[in-house]
């Protein structure tokens, strides 16, 4: 009976996986999802809503079990850190937790303290802020543990603000705290907030986020910096392989299967070899360099928006460009995609849906939310979730 239940659960689990959006750029961390989502925008649809936010943020919403989790920061010095939980259906605030920042809160005007996106393993949610405060709470908002990484390491800060979103892998929270002065990435025990390992990392401002490569027991974590990529074991921080031809400090890498698309010399595809202890370079193309946002996966294709607001659609296996089109930018957030559509918002709040065909892309819907949007949407079957400076929105069709 028990085995039967587990078998049924294993059949259903991909559905649950697809219904949730567990971290920055989706549960796979690559902006892609295999579910279908909306193909039109409608603010007036009865399933669409907007909720006021108590503070600013560039962080994205994550979706867990019918709830939306989001961070914000408020106060004259953005010293108040908010963790918010909303109902996915109605948009009503279910609970809110407020903490005080224990690290530095000075940021560039364009960003803010609530820049990193939360992460969940469906049991707990973890919020990291630019102040390097980390809070782990359960889905009802009860505090499980907290850390203040700038409290612990006072030089761990970036005068412009930090933005790396944390990851969870094999029961370990990976927090990337990379900067000019005291640069490190640490693995924290998700059960109790204790440090399992801490790797000294290249000094330099780094706004990229770590990504997961592989699944199950072979899962590794790719750390990106201006030096390149370091693929590490999440349980002990030990490096499996490195790529040292440099990489961007703003857009993050995009994992798909055993391939990692790295913003390096344009874009470089690295394939991890069986066993995960070495890699090969599959292709590299300097025409595929992303702007601020990271590439998104759509089936066996990927999409990149560059600094000139040109969207490129290309093959993952070869880097072959299938088409390019100009979009209405500038875009700070990363695009997200289903197998057939791409979704993104520009900084002025204009949402755009692009229908992805093999020979061209077509803008099939736009929606002007008339508020500054610098974040990345979350996708679900029944709509798209996006945060502006003042509101959290659900847009259905």
């Amino acid at each position: 009976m028990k085995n039967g239940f587990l078998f049924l659960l294993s059949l259903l689990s991909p559905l649950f996986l697809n219904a949730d959006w567990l971290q920055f750029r989706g549960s796979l961390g690559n902006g892609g999802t295999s579910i279908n989502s909306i193909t039109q925008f409608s603010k007036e649809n009865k399933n669409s809503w907007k909720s006021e936010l108590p503070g600013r943020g560039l962080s994205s919403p994550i979706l867990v079990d019918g709830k939306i989790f989001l961070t914000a920061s408020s106060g004259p010095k953005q010293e108040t850190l908010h963790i918010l939980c909303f109902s996915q259906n109605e948009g009503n605030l279910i609970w809110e937790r407020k903490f005080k920042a224990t690290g530095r809160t000075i940021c560039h005007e364009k960003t803010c303290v609530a820049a990193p996106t939360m992460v969940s393993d469906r049991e707990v949610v973890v919020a990291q802020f630019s102040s390097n405060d980390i809070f782990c709470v359960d889905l009802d908002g009860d505090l499980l543990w907290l850390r203040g990484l700038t409290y612990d390491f006072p030089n761990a800060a970036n005068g412009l603000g930090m933005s790396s979103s944390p990851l969870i892998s094999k029961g370990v929270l990976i927090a990337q705290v990379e900067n000019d002065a005291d640069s490190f990435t640490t693995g924290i025990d998700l059960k109790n907030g204790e440090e399992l390992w801490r790797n000294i990392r290249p000094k330099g401002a780094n706004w990229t986020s770590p990504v997961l490569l592989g699944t199950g027991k072979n899962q590794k974590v790719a750390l990106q910096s201006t030096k390149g990529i370091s693929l590490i074991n999440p349980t002990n921080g030990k490096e499996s392989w490195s790529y040292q031809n440099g990489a961007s400090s703003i857009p993050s890498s995009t994992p798909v299967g055993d391939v990692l698309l790295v913003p390096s010399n344009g874009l470089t595809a690295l394939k991890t070899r069986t066993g995960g202890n070495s890699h090969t370079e599959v292709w590299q193309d300097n025409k595929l360099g992303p702007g601020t946002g990271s590439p998104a996966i759509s089936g066996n294709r990927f999409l990149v928006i560059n600094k000139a607001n040109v969207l490129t659609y290309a093959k993952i296996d070869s880097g072959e460009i299938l088409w390019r089109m100009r979009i209405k930018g500038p875009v700070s957030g990363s695009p997200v995609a289903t197998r057939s559509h791409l979704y993104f918002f520009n900084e002025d709040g204009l949402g755009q849906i692009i229908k992805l065909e093999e020979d061209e892309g077509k803008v099939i819907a736009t929606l002007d939310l008339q508020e500054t949007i610098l974040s990345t949407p979350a996708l679900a079957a029944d709509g798209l979730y996006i945060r502006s400076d003042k509101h959290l929105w659900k847009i259905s069709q």
Partner: protein
Amino acid sequence: MIKHLSILYCLFCVKLSVQSSPDSTNLIQSLVAIKSQGEGNREAMKAWPQVSQFPPSAIPQLLEAMNRANDLGDNWIRAAIEKICEQNTTQLPVQRIIAFLQDHSNQAESRHMAFQILQSELPSKADQLIPSFIDDPAPVLRQKAVELILSKARNSSAKPKAIKLYQKALIQAREVEQIKEASRELEEAGEKINLIQLMGLLPEWQLMGPFDNSERKGFSVEYGPESGKGLTEQHKNKDGIVKWEKFSTQDELGLVDINQKYGELKEVCAYARTTFHSQSAQSAHFRIGSKNAWKMWVNGTLLFSRDEYHRGKTRIDQFIIEGKLQEGENEILLKVCQNEQTQSWTKQWEFNFRITDRTGSAIHSSGSTIK
């Protein structure tokens, strides 16, 4: 099921026995005792579910515990109070919370938490209290009262009234942006404001340099001035002998532009020193602003260093470092480094500096500021 019932029973017992019982004191102490790098997290994790089920009458006790907690413990207790409030909105001990808020012997952050409870549960009561914060030692509370005055000034159609409000705001404000706003408005109305005096910015320094900072290595090199031999010392740089030389800034916000002294150099360090006379031994906030890498010594002790270049602009109070002034003369020594970058936004080689008490009020040197 049995497990759930036993947990409920335990929580019920906690509620009954919470009034400063040894158990409740120990539970709260687990949150207060949290240390850096996750030390104490396990004990806090065990205690927090019980503390968060305390009755609302325990809130003053928890606020008092915040007085003793570090910033991490503060957040543990804050979360527990928030949970208690969430479950008991109608039974809060309002008068005791107000009494705690109004008692200036409590710590600024715990008093602010008391205010936030009121603001969340009884917003009109909280609003009524804001004007009373105008002389408050807690900067975060005083900021709210000053904001109220600034808001009235902004919305006042009568210019004389607005000017009076801005004057009051300028005297009472401790927060930099509020000071800047009030002074800007008053200067536009024809008043001359001495921000250096008002904010206690130090405009007069002795400078020595430049020293080599090739490949940013000079930041860690102990050049002669770090030995602290006094104003008559001389040291060698690559061009010859360098000495302490007087430098006074004319900038209205006390910005010391080192480029004015040595030219727009790259990959260099300079030292700045001054003597600060304190009337008594006291705790102080040493507040430096710089977009360059820097180190700060007070009376020969390195208080903090920051090896970061050109990440944003130089701001007043960019870094606030806690330390102590001794009675009489205090030697302040700064090392400010410039890197190799050549972009237009990387040419600045500068700092500002002031000393305040914990409330943000300027501490002025009681004697000569330079020796």
